[in-house]
């Protein structure tokens, strides 16, 4: 009898134990992820997106490949040497990771900010945050379309409800998306609010005026891009540019890199770890032929030598993995805390110069000269040297200024950290002429391998088309 009772108690305890050990409540508790939150506040998202814009979007792979394509530098090692020599390194994997980062990290985070600050969101009324997010989204979307062309937009970012987003044309992005996003951004940024991202904005530290000026500057840049299309409106470019930067202090430049190994300028990290880029013959010649005072500041002698200057011809560089054959950009340019320019004051001036070109040569020249002056002053060039440079008829002609004059100066002003814009200008205007001995650069980057793998029905072009299908806005 007693034994029987013991069995019963034991059995009952066992049943209770087992049932509580695997109840849904207990299992839910166990299955709660202790490592990663399912929601985070704006103050943790803002640092992420404001570091993504200068680094992920502006500072790494795309700019490195573009730099070699547009002959800002010459690739002397590994992938970039392959790209310079137009080998199979130019393939759908080269931009794969960047495309994925833009679509699956940068823009989703921006979308979360826009959503959170919206009327239905968890942190409504943060208009500065939402305005900033929209500026950064426009900047990122423009970068995608400028590099690849047509891109998914209206059907993008829908998760599992649309696993094969269709592509929108570049024309649609330029005419229906970018300006609208920037206009909304400006409206948000001009709305009164007590909320400011402050130090969580790693780019401007919450300076709303600079964001507004950046938005106008980008409007001008994207309007000017339409110069070859029927949609071009020079007056609109000038109007936007007039609301943009009035000096170099205000410009869209990231100045917060640190000396810490995980806080350094990406170009510095690249030069330190892998050394793919060397000084190109193209840039050397453009500077040297006109006695450009920037040359001695920008170029470094071949490592281990006192004064041997040896730029590399694009398409013909030897493998210089050891960094002992060619000259590189100097440590005046590439250093851990170097500023990374995304849109400069002089770019705004050059945009205005170009927009005035068809209507008002005097204003065109005035902005052109101001652009050159600002670009020189950036490097501490003395006024006398600037004047001497401008005295050169090839730089500042007595007669009419041409598009080539402007774009060449812009090209040099974009050196070293904004090669993508130089590559855009080259494809839009054909200036400056490329010198790569193997052939001109591709018109676009090949669509990424991941799109061919998992969205093959919608990718508009095959990888072989990069040398024969131009972008919609291209020359």
């Amino acid at each position, binding site marked *: 009898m007693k034994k029987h009772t013991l069995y019963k108690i034991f059995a009952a305890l066992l049943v209770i134990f087992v049932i509580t050990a695997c109840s849904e409540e207990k299992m*839910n508790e166990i299955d709660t992820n202790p490592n990663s939150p399912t929601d*985070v506040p704006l103050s943790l998202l803002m640092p992420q997106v404001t570091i993504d814009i200068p680094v992920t979007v502006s500072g790494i792979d795309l700019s490195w490949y573009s730099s070699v394509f547009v002959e800002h530098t010459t690739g002397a090692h590994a*992938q970039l040497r392959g790209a310079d020599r137009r080998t199979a390194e130019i*393939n759908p994997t080269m931009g794969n990771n960047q495309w994925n980062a833009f679509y*699956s990290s940068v823009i989703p985070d921006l979308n979360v900010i826009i959503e959170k600050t919206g009327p239905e969101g968890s942190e409504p009324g943060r208009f500065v945050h939402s305005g900033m997010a929209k500026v950064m989204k426009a900047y990122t979307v423009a970068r995608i379309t400028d590099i690849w062309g047509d891109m998914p937009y209206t059907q993008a970012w*829908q998760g599992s409800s649309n696993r094969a987003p269709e592509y929108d044309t570049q024309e649609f992005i330029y005419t229906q998306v970018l300006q609208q996003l920037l206009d909304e951004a400006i409206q948000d940024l001009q709305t009164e609010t007590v909320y400011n991202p402050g130090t969580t904005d790693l780019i401007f530290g919450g300076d709303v005026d600079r964001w507004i000026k950046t938005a106008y500057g980008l409007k001008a840049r994207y309007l000017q891009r339409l110069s070859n299309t029927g949609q071009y409106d020079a007056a609109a470019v000038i109007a936007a540019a007039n609301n943009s930067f009035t000096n170099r202090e205000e410009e869209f430049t990231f100045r917060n890199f640190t000396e810490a190994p995980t806080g350094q300028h990406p170009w510095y990290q690249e030069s330190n770890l892998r050394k793919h880029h060397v000084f190109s013959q193209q840039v050397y010649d453009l500077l040297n032929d006109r006695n450009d005072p920037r040359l001695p500041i920008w170029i470094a002698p071949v490592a281990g030598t006192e004064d041997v200057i040896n730029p590399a011809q694009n398409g013909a560089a030897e493998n210089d993995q*050891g*960094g002992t054959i060619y000259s590189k950009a100097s440590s005046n340019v590439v250093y851990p805390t170097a500023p990374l320019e995304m849109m400069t004051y002089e770019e705004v001036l050059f945009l205005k110069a170009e927009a005035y070109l068809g209507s008002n040569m005097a204003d065109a020249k005035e902005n052109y000269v101001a652009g050159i002056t600002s670009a020189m002053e950036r490097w501490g060039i003395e006024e006398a040297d600037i004047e001497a440079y401008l005295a050169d008829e090839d730089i500042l002609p007595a007669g009419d200024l041409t598009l080539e004059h402007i774009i060449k100066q812009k090209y040099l002003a974009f050196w070293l950290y904004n090669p993508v814009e130089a590559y855009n200008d080259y494809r839009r205007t054909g200036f400056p002429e490329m010198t790569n001995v193997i052939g001109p650069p591709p018109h676009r980057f090949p669509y*990424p391998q991941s799109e061919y793998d998992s969205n093959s029905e919608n990718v508009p072009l095959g990888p072989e088309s990069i040398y024969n299908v131009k972008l919609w806005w291209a020359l």
Partner: protein
Amino acid sequence: MKKICLIFAILVFMGNVLIAQERRITGTVTDAVDGSTMPGVTISVRGTTQGTITDTNGRYEITVEEGATLVFSFIGMVTEQRVVGTESVINVSMSMDLATLQEIVVTAFGIEREKKALSYSVQEVSGEMMSQSGNPSMANALQGKVAGVIVRQSSGMPGSSSHVTIRGSRSFTGNNQPLYVVDGVPISSGSDVSGGVSGTDFSSRFLDINPESIESINVLKGPAASALYGMRATNGVVIITTKSGRGMAKGQTRVNFSTNYTWDEVSRLPELQSTYAQGSAGALNQNTSLSWGPRIDTLGTYFHRVLEEDYDGTGRVFDNVNPFFQTGHTLNATIDVSGAGEFGNYSVGFGQTDQTGIIDKTGMSRSTARLAGTFNITDKLTVGGNANFSSLNVDKIPGGSNLSNPLFTIYAAPRSYDLFGLPYHDPNDPYRQIHYRAAMDNPLWAMENSVFYEQTQRVFGNVNASYKIADGININYRLGTDYFITDGKEVYEKGSGFTGGRTNPPSGGQIFDFAYTNLEINSNINLTINRSLTDDIDLEFLLGNEFSDTKRRFLENTGRTITIGGFRNINNTGTQTVFESSTWERTVGFFGNLGLSWRSTLFLNASGRNDIVSYMPEGNRSFFYPSVGLGFVLTELMDQDEAGLTFAKLRASWAQVGQGGPLYSTQNIFVTGGAADVGGFIGGQGIQFPFQNQNGFTLSTVLRSPDLVPQNTNTTELGFDLRFVNNRIGLDYTYYLIDVTDQIYAVPIPASTGFTSELRNAGRLETSGHEVVFTIVPVLTQDFEWNFTTNFSSYQNEVLELAPGVTDIFLGGFVQPNVRAQANSSYPVIFGTRFLRDDDGNIVNLDDPTSAFHGMPIADPDAGVIGNVQPDFEMNFINNIRYRSINLTFQIDWRQGGQMYAGNTRLQKLYGMDAMTEDRESDFTAPGVKGYLDEDGNLVVTGDNDIVLNTYDQHQTYWLDAMDAIDESNVYETSFVRFRELSLSYDLPQSVLANVGINSASIYFTGRNLFLWTDYPNFDPETSTGGAGNFQGLEYVALPQTRSYGMGVRLSF
């Protein structure tokens, strides 16, 4: 039946009629094979309850009536019978029963069953087989011993990981390694961190088990065998039984001591060219990684950049490979004491393994201790326990594409560069390296300054109790735990190229400290009933519950920028980044098993298990898995020995088992952000938070789903087991078909969805295969015995479907080449740039005289599959030959087919170091046709290739640029025949030993990996950079394998 009854009746009658005469019988029982005495033999008197056992000297004494029949029985031996006549001494010699030797097998939850009754294939490996070659790693010792089990050892470094699969893979990206169960309790066995293309290997946790402590291993290959273990057993189960003193005669105590010493050497080194110096295009360049320079014999005098003086390099060819390697040593010692008595049985053991690797500073040290015992408290209650402790230290070096991997330079250092003779750092600054190439570490500097180690302290074991409720009805309970901490340190010293520190003055440096803890609790209660239902039908019934709870915690601290060189504390770094991850998972399972047998002829088995798992979504956590099997012993219905057939069984089974997805896969999450470089240009350094005193989070790129269900594995297995000529020939064949549906994996989706992958159920993987175990005993005499076993296994692992619109998924590797699962291909495949081929499959060489690539292979603009990793088949030949006291065992493994990307050989070729690049002066025409791609990308073939490459530059361009751009040119077959193991032992004669109180003693010599025949170039085809991960088939500057010779002694007191 009638006849037997009659005889029995007559005997009884006679016994009563005759006046019973009592006799005192004595005698000795000996082993027919070696004549040794046999203690513990049971002697019973037929028809009575009378009996005795032999003492420690094999002697017995019994008083019986004349005419009685004495039955001598001992497990594993043929039962002998003697009718008592007038003699007073009856000596019996017993011989091994080949039929019963393997009859009892351990199945799920430690349940012992007659092998005959099983409806699925299991294979046993004895502890002796595991320890005979002195291999310190249990998994590596298992290699080739069991049909269907494939062990891929990452390298021959002490403590290196291994990837073990049984019958191929079940999961695209999840765990494919079997469950390991030690004495009834599942333990953690994988690596804490699985391998990638760069960095250090992490040891697999089965390394904590001393192979010498293993009594036996049973491999449950298919889900039908392992279904009772539920979701965790999809990949099969390796059941390890440790020595416990069980089965020993009461009163017996035995002390076993064994020790062995092994010399290890590098098994294979690359064949290098020895003609050309460092440089490019035939010109000397002292800074390049290339050896496309001038002939060394014409080098002349040049200004040496390191020595900073004029240097005559003519004819100076340096060996930069051999001096790097040394002879490794392994010392194993194990002692254990086992005994049995009325109280029960016990075993206590200690083991020590010390190993130094073939590369300086690598090594392993392992100490193990264990205690196991069973105590008979009453005749109904038995309690037992089992505790294992191990302490493991592994010193290692980084492998793969790590700038600090010394082999990067060792294998590729130019022959004109005196790596071992030149200084490797500035005389005034130990952290300022001198090396011929930038970015990378000088191997001598790295060996002196870098430190990598891991150490694991582990306790696992269980307490158990068994209570006999009634005859044939038992209730069993077991509570087990597995607890370990692995911690370690990786120091890339200040100035290390890995951290970009080769600046002037030296900078960088990195210290990585980590600790992983794992705690698993396992509780198992079950009720077993063994009953005869009728005269013909026997029942085996099992009902139980298993509770398993695992908590893991990872803590990592990465310190960057070492402030003071040589001071290896993380406080001595400029910035520290911490990472923490904790996981908790629980499975509660209810299971039942029903076995019915009819006249020992027909066996039916059915099982069911219901699992409730924490890591599936709410409402979707409970799953039921059934299995059913049938075994039919044909020979029970035949007359014995008909046509030499001793035993014949047909078996068939079907089972369904699931496998869960990754933990925490049901809700979208935000993860710590940053802006790492993505294309590999800056080695993943990038920007990390905290940055400018801010922290950042980003939405995970993996889309998670609350609708997941477990993946489902359906297995059908058919087989037969035939034995002929009194069991001297055996043939066991199994066919299986494994169909896995609803795979849970990160399905790639276009990034334009906002995510790069989505965790969902999709895809189907099918494996079908054949296994044959053939055994034959060609010779069996008192003095000479020869056993020969052949294992054959072959399987096709095919991906039938991934997900709609998904053609392949990435498993590991580089941007290209990489390893993938691809729809309608075998699993996994190597993916990369291919040769451009014409419609007939000929390689197309460029026909364009204006191009530097004229006459060289063109890369196909579309990348594709360039190799299949799975071999066609594997065969193992194991011979065991005994002549009197000499035993010779050897194992030869043959793997046919399968391919691997030879990353190491690729570097050798492009650097111009491989012997293949030695001839740079002869005319050369690449095989294939010639042609070009027109503007629209269409191939135009212009004829058979007759373009002659005759300049030095063309040879260089061919290897360095043309061939190197084509990943396919570096894919090679991994077929091999390997002399895996050899063991020669001599048992010292009893006559000598008896005087010194030693029961048995043997000395032995071993060899592992003695010969290798393969077409795979330069390195060992079994090397893998993927370590214990699914990413197999890609080798990239992997650490080498070893060849070993050794000797040892076994003593038993």
